[in-house]
């Protein structure tokens, strides 16, 4: 097993790397190099920050094409975390309309808080599963809490791509999946036991 954490200079890749190591994986590489994309068994796209900056950086460094090849041609399991999940979308709307990686059809929009709710949505919140039989949710009980920090959310075009919702700002999609491509809006690497279980489930794909 070789787990690639895709490094494009945004976000704290260190926490993700440590959490994967803690799951018992020895070979965890933080990289944006071609050769690491070619022989990895699993890939993780982390990210904290703004959608346009992230896409610009991925495009400039030629990482966009590498991610698409890995996910579409090679069918390597790919997990997008937080901004990394949002980048999987067709389009982002942060600042202006922007092309995303277009790996799962959908767009990314700002959360619209209800009265009394704050943005960014920060803290532990419930993840309600829509598809209990998905292997990503093995051994995790429905409505477990995970740790969130975000102001935008992914609106998938196809309902069958939705794995979970979280009851905030109305209700937003907190997990998505399309075949080997998976996204989590929360931070499993900061979500203690439930987070570890989710990462282990991903590594078992």
């Amino acid at each position, binding site marked *: 097993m070789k787990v690639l954490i895709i490094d494009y200079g945004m976000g*704290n890749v*260190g*926490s993700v790397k*440590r*959490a994967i190591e*803690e799951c018992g994986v020895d070979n965890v590489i933080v990289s944006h190099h071609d050769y690491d994309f070619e022989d990895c068994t699993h890939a993780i796209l982390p990210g904290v920050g703004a959608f346009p900056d992230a896409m610009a950086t991925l495009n400039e460094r030629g990482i966009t094409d590498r991610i698409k090849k890995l996910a579409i041609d090679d069918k390597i399991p790919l997990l997008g975390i937080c901004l990394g999940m949002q980048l999987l979308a067709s389009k982002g709307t942060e600042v202006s309309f922007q092309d995303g990686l277009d790996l799962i059809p959908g767009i990314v929009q700002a959360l619209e808080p209800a009265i009394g709710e704050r943005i*960014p949505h*920060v803290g*532990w919140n419930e993840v309600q599963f829509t598809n209990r039989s998905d292997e990503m949710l093995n*051994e*995790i*009980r*429905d*409505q*477990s*809490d995970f*740790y969130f*920090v975000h102001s935008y959310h992914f609106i998938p075009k196809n309902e069958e791509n939705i794995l979970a919702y979280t009851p905030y700002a109305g209700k937003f999609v907190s997990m998505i999946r399309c075949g080997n491509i998976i996204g989590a809006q929360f931070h499993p*690497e*900061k*979500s*203690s*036991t*439930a*987070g*570890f*279980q989710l990462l282990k489930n991903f590594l078992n794909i």
Partner: protein
Amino acid sequence: MLWKNIGLVKGVGFNSWRRVGSILPAVKVYNTRQVDEMIIVDISASRDNNQPDFEMLSEIAHECFVPLTFGGGINSLEHITKSLRLGADKIAVNTAALANPELITKASERFGSQCVVVSIDAIMHEDGDYYCYTHSGSQPTAYKVLEWAKEVEKLGAGEILLTDVELDGSMKGYNQDLIRQVSSAVSIPVIASGGAGNLNDFSTAILESGASAVAAASLFHFTQLTPLEIKRHLASKNIMTRNALVNG
């Protein structure tokens, strides 16, 4: 959790610090005990005018798999950038914020208010008002706690970590009056700290005094109570805390 150069410490009234162990084993234990967040402050940094202990932060972040707040000696945006890169999710400032309130605004504009925790160390003076202290409770300031709390909210703080210096480490109970005053003066979350000694202290701080979160240290170091028991107690009072439901 507080640490000095000698290791993980616990004092009483911010004095007579006792060494209660090494920090890393403690972080590992708390990871398994269902704490929702960890706040780790280097109490010697500002007092001794030292830089933040980034080496220690890095080691702690390595073992911490819940959100981590780091404080002690942070006085610039560069310090904050470095702390976040090393794995902190939030930073806590007190001494530097009182000396340079603009730091709060600049930090929340650059990194988002969710990562800026302003720590307030309060002591009641003879006039009956609470005043802010800096340098680990050793230096008084002219700032009244209520005024400063409202001010930091305006400046962009995301949370207030509120500690009654004289009760800290006493396990005599939180200063519920102080918590009530500050919680009703601001709309940002107030974390109650300093003095928790039994289960009811936690639920009272939330239900009656208006705290959004409760912090404790001595209680875990010196009694048999665990974070999980506190969470069960809070749940029995219908206060929601994180629930981690993993089979087995």
